[in-house]
């Protein structure tokens, strides 16, 4: 969405999960050499706020170009350390394809690896807020508050309530550890409650951390645990995909939705319509 200087919306776009633009209910096609954006406007910032090249129709994500018409990157994924198939998992064949976008699962937005440290929370929140129409000061304020969730009182405790702030597993009131499904439910409820109570920073923090599988399914055991070095370094060096997934989750929250609902549990079906009770015919 683009806003005027007065804060009024002047352009908004709809996209398929893989980024093809939808105008008047129709998915737009792209062809090379098409000089004019197909929706007839001069808005070049399209899917997830990335700039779309008017000649090729490709989206620029910083590290690579993305072709939304085929749902693929146009170059292979890369890593700083030389690796044959970066970020791959042998038990997930989708990760072996270096050209797929979020493992062909654009609604789940879960990155194969990575974490977020406070500075990343701040940066992602700031960009998401700016790209959803917030002013600079409001965005910076929200970014600082989202990063500060890591430093709130009790934030690093191992109980379920505080662990779910970070999309992690914690100790339940009955004294046992949450299962992954229980932590998903707890995190989803945390986001719902935070959004209802106006604590947008907490909701943003939880959904941004939830996009990082080193939080998802893990329990926090402190600095002296074996997993701490991996946790710490990946918090500070998240992969581009982690950043993009967290950013997308943040945009969804700022649009007023809970992005964890479609990941963790499909929305409950609407309640069945109650059959109307037979009307009593007044006796004449």
């Amino acid at each position, binding site marked *: 969405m683009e806003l005027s200087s007065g804060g009024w919306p002047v352009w908004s776009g709809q996209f398929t999960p893989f980024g093809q633009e939808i105008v008047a209910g129709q998915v737009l096609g792209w062809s090379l050499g098409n000089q004019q954006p197909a929706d007839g406007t001069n808005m070049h910032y399209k899917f997830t706020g990335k700039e779309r090249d008017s000649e090729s129709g490709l989206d620029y994500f910083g590290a690579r170009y993305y072709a939304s018409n085929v749902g693929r990157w146009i170059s292979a994924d890369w890593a700083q350390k030389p690796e044959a198939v970066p970020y791959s998992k042998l038990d997930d064949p989708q990760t072996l394809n270096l050209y797929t976008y979020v493992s062909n699962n654009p609604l789940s937005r879960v990155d194969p690896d990575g974490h977020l440290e406070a500075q990343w929370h701040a940066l992602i929140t700031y960009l998401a807020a700016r790209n959803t129409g917030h002013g600079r000061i409001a965005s910076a304020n929200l970014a600082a508050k989202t990063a500060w969730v890591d430093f709130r009182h009790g934030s690093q405790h191992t109980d379920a309530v505080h662990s779910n702030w970070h999309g992690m597993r914690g100790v339940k009131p009955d*004294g*046992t550890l949450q*299962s992954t499904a229980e932590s998903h439910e707890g995190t989803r409820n945390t986001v719902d409650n935070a959004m209802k109570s106006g604590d947008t920073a907490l909701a943003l923090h939880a959904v941004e951390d939830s996009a990082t599988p080193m939080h998802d399914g893990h*329990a926090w055991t*402190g*600095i002296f645990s074996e*997993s701490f070095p991996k946790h710490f370094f990946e918090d500070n060096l998240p992969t581009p995909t982690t950043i993009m997934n967290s950013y997308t989750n943040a945009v969804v929250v700022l649009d007023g939705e809970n992005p964890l609902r479609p990941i963790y549990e499909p929305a409950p079906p609407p309640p069945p319509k109650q059959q109307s009770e037979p009307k009593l015919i007044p006796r004449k």
Partner: protein
Amino acid sequence: MPKARNSCLFILFLAVLAGCSRSEQVNRSQGAMPLAQEFVFGPRYMRLPEGYFVLVRKGNEVGAFRLQHVSQKQDGTGTSMYESFILEKERPRNISLTNQKSGVIEIKQVRGIHPFTWQPGNNEIHVGAWKFGCLTPSLVNMSSHFSESDDGFEFAPTAAQTPTDIKPFDQNLRWVHFDNESRVTIPITAVAK
């Protein structure tokens, strides 16, 4: 001048660290958590009732340990004591208890500042050469230390309350292995000595 500025920044950082550390120490909830009346195995950790031995085996080695004097608050802090043995076969039906260990489990409020937080106090149970981490005074990892993956340990709850009551080769023992997601609850009345 830059040195003085760096010193000031360092002192400021320490002050923030100390302040946050102190704020983490504030007790949140003072309510006591009721003691477990059953064995709960999984996910990943096991919650143990007070006074009853649990057998642990890996490969050819078998050990046993139990928790005593469990005192736990709702926030998971508190203390307990443990004693443990390694069981060695002398003859087919008899065992001897060796390598006895005991200690205090002390779970205090988390200290430090994100991400440099730690749990002060002793949060490990030693059974022979094995170590198992505790998240609360009665919640023990089913893998070594605080590992999140299966290290091959198996556990069997017993109704034994003294070392001489332990029968590690009882056919009625129910052995439970590490599971990351599922939860198995076994009442004390349903387990063999």
